[in-house]
């Protein structure tokens, strides 16, 4: 199966699933009932947990090896500080990429 076909399968299935999630209550409120506090809290945790689970390995694992003092982890730490202070996606990305380019020059 070609990569393009795989991509389109992902697009269509994810699209249908995502639209179902989005329309779940809006279309079927009467059948879903109230959302419990527990369910609400579980859903509230998802962005923090999912985003962290995506970010950490991408920054701390290089070619399968755990790395804490390399260009990417350090650039990641700098970017984290920038994100915290500026709350700007643009600055986080720009500073992070510049940092990783610079650090790859400096560090072996």
């Amino acid at each position, binding site marked *: 199966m070609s*990569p*393009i076909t*795989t*991509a*389109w*399968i*992902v*697009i*269509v*299935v*994810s*699209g249908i699933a*995502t*639209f179902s*999630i*989005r*329309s*779940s*209550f*809006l*279309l079927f*409120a009467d059948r879903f009932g109230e*959302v419990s506090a527990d369910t609400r*809290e*579980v*859903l*509230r*945790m*998802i*962005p*923090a*947990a*999912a*985003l*962290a*689970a*995506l*970010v*950490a*390995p*991408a920054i701390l*694992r290089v070619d*399968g090896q*755990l790395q804490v003092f390399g260009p*990417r982890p350090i650039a*990641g730490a700098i*970017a*984290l500080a920038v*994100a*915290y202070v500026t*709350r*700007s*996606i*643009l600055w*986080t*990305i720009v500073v*992070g*990429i510049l940092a*990783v*380019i610079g650090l790859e020059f400096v560090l072996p």
Partner: protein
Amino acid sequence: MEAGVPTLSASRSALAGAREVAPVLLGIIPFGLVAGVVVVEAGLGLPEAVGFSTIVFAGAAQIAAIDLLGSGSPAWVAILTAIVINLRMMMYSASLVVPMAGESRARRLAVAYVLTDQPYALSVARYANPDRPAVDRWWFYVGVGYSLWLVWQICTVLGVLVGASVPDAVPLGFGVPLAFLALLVPSVTDRPTLAAAVVGAGVAVVAAPLPANAGMLVGAVSGVTAGALLARRRRITGPVGR
């Protein structure tokens, strides 16, 4: 509707929505560009970028799924990851039931199609705000959501063009985790979400060697569990815990 309180017209409400989301749109631009760049980095093209942005229309989920496809993950892994990331939208759907209660099914579907963090947050905040003129809720939401949709489509396409023309030496792919990092920071608002993030990160790093991106999913589930348990304990013991 209270007697004597005029509600803004449809067009005024829609414009109010667009104006409300305008500052957010500036922040969406780099994110949309990343969504386009990552498509090129994954060896896919403009049709796939447009497909993702119109059919899925969910930034973090799109980028994560495309990134996985680029690393050779099978379709089901990318799909599952996208679904997990988008599950929070169920909460948004539930919270809009009351504001959209009088609307037709077609209008509610139109709401659902562009339902994401900002249209939800900005609309709910406006509906609850007594100090601003009352808006037609559906039109306000349409102003927010569809402005966002338009900017997203444009930026994804631009991102594909940018990604294709930037030299390989520039590690644009690193922009993906950076974009997620920029989203992660505001999502951590209290100790439970901090616990969710720390546990999610730790488990995902340790479990990274697992095949089929299971490491990320195991990390996410662990993080959600840790955060939800902590939140529950705080609810039961009260905010002033031990």
